[in-house]
């Protein structure tokens, strides 16, 4: 257990270091804009706003929130404090709606879409990878090129292909949204069904991309494992191939968890793009409209939330990996 504690502390330290960097970046970038950030924001706002009381309110709010007259270190802690209180200020484009409100309404769509999609894609990809390695022959000859092709598609490519085929041509699924535009969110079968139907295309476009990447990695890991001495030994003790493939799957899959941790940032990026293509009401679409509306506080909050989500997902995966792979504990204790 000592080895694992060291592993855990090591990963925790990295989480903290990266989180500090994420906060620093999120804090510094707006301040790198020429001139006084508050003035810059307000002057940009002024172009689209005729409400002078609103403008004044915004200016005051930002002056106190950013505390631009205070020393930079103090500003940073002020900012971190605000973030932890969930105070991201007001949105510009939907003024005076608080940014936190917008986040609350979109984050669950994103979480509900991306986590299941990435996990399902990861599992299917790994199963296909180990089967391709074990069966070889025809199966491998199909899986490999298809996986290579899919994993090299840009994220929006898969979404657009599915959109064109299944929504535009076949009209099996709607082209956009998280639920029918004529419905209001409520607990009714009609609404739930509508959510399920709208879920399919964005979901599968993320799943397919994840499958491609994972299958390729898993296949080569499995080929390596299938040649390991323990496979031969187990065979010669009369253990069935099905069992042995199970050993190989587990051994090749465990390192794939770190692979997933590494890939999760890219995957989330791709998934955000899929949201945008399908106008899914999650963070990706929110981010896009925020950028289009130059809604600076919203952009900043969304990017911060996404970064933190990726960091936490990453950390959790590494921790789980360390717990379930005995090789990690052993490697850490010597």
């Amino acid at each position: 257990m000592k080895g694992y504690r060291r592993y855990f502390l090591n990963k925790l330290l990295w989480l903290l270091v990266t989180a500090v960097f994420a906060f620093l970046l999120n804090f510094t970038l707006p301040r790198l804009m020429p001139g006084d950030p508050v003035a810059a924001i307000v002057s940009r706002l002024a172009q689209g706003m005729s409400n002078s009381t609103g403008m004044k309110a915004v200016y005051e709010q930002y002056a106190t929130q950013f505390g631009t007259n205070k020393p930079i270190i103090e500003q940073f802690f002020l900012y971190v404090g605000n973030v932890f209180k969930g105070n991201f200020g007001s949105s510009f484009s939907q003024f005076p709606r608080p940014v936190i409100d917008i986040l609350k309404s979109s984050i669950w769509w994103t979480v509900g879409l991306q986590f299941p999609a990435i996990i399902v894609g990861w599992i299917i990809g790994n199963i296909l990878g180990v089967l391709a390695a074990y069966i070889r022959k025809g199966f491998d000859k199909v899986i490999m090129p298809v996986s290579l092709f899919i994993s090299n598609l840009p994220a929006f490519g898969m979404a657009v292909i599915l959109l064109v085929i299944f929504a535009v041509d076949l009209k099996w699924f709607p082209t956009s949204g998280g639920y029918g535009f004529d419905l209001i969110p409520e607990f009714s079968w009609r609404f739930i069904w509508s959510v399920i139907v709208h879920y399919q295309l964005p979901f599968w476009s993320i799943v397919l991309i994840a499958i491609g990447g994972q299958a390729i990695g898993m296949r080569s890991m499995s080929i390596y494992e299938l040649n390991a001495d323990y496979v031969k030994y187990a065979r010669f003790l009369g253990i069935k191939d099905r069992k042995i493939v199970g050993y190989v799957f587990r051994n090749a899959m465990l390192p794939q968890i770190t692979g997933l941790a590494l890939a999760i940032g890219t995957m989330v990026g791709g998934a955000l793009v899929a949201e945008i293509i399908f106008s899914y009401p999650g963070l990706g679409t929110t981010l896009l409209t925020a950028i289009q509306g130059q809604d600076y506080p919203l952009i900043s909050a969304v990017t911060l939330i996404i970064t933190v989500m990726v960091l936490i997902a990453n950390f959790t995966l590494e921790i789980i990996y360390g717990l379930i792979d005995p090789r990690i504990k052993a490697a850490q204790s010597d």
Partner: protein
Amino acid sequence: MGKVMLEVNELTTKYITRFNEDVYAVDHVSLKVEEGKSLGIAGESGCGKSTLALSLMGYYFSPLHYTSGEIIIDGQNITGMNPDAVRKSILGNEIAYIPQAAMNALNPTQKIINFIEDVVQAHDPKVSKKEIYELARERFEVLGLPKEVLQRYPVELSGGMKQRTVIATSVILEPKILIADEPSSALDVTSQKMVIKMLRYMMEKGYVKAMIFITHELPLLYNVTDDIMVMYAGQIVEKGSAQQTVFDPIHPYAKGLMGSIIVPESGLKDSKLTAIPGTPPNLKKPPEGCRFAERCKYVTPECKRFPVDMKYVEGNRSYRCIFSEEHLRKAYQNG
């Protein structure tokens, strides 16, 4: 003569490489091991010892293929048997194997006890986990392994413990024949002897009825196996009792493997393999005549002309050389 536990007649197997070339790594090998006896197989690296070990199991998978010959285990001819049937009813419970790299033979992410459960249940799914645990605990105790080892992962065990765990697992179903392929090649000579003693002890306890022990060091086999076979380029070149083969080899290759040891005991201890100049031939295209001819000190043009058969001589011995025993002995005396 005791009951024959393993009889192999003219067994030939080959590798088919990725480039579709045949490698005849086991060429017409015949052998017999009686109940309670052990057979040592010696030869340099690349002579086909490991391939022979695998071939003896009677279960083949790519790139190794069966060509001809037969394997008879305790009177049951297993050649031609359905591979799935071999796996279920022969491997592990009639004949078991300890691989050359025993250190890597265990699945790194599985607890020892779970692996043993898989081994036992592959042959009899009805045995309960409790019974398997009791069996494993007893077997581990005999080998001096604490029962806690059963709950560990292989990575948590020392090299010696892994070695013993593999031995204990291989004999868990009390196979009639145990084939150990250099189970100790990574260890020093003393530890190697330990492993061999342990294997012999398994035989004394009756967990194993006969044993084949493979090593690249012929001198190691003295005093530990009953008989010895020397293998060169896929063929047996000498067969006899351990005593005879180690101290009085007939074939020039066996002679070379023993180096210049003359003094028993003291001589054995610090014997270093005097390397025979040259390397074994490429088994994709083995020489027509004597396969050792290229490296033999006593070679004549006659040697390379025709394949050489085994000659049987006094004392239940045989060797593969065109020369008579007297001729060779005289040659050795003259240096």
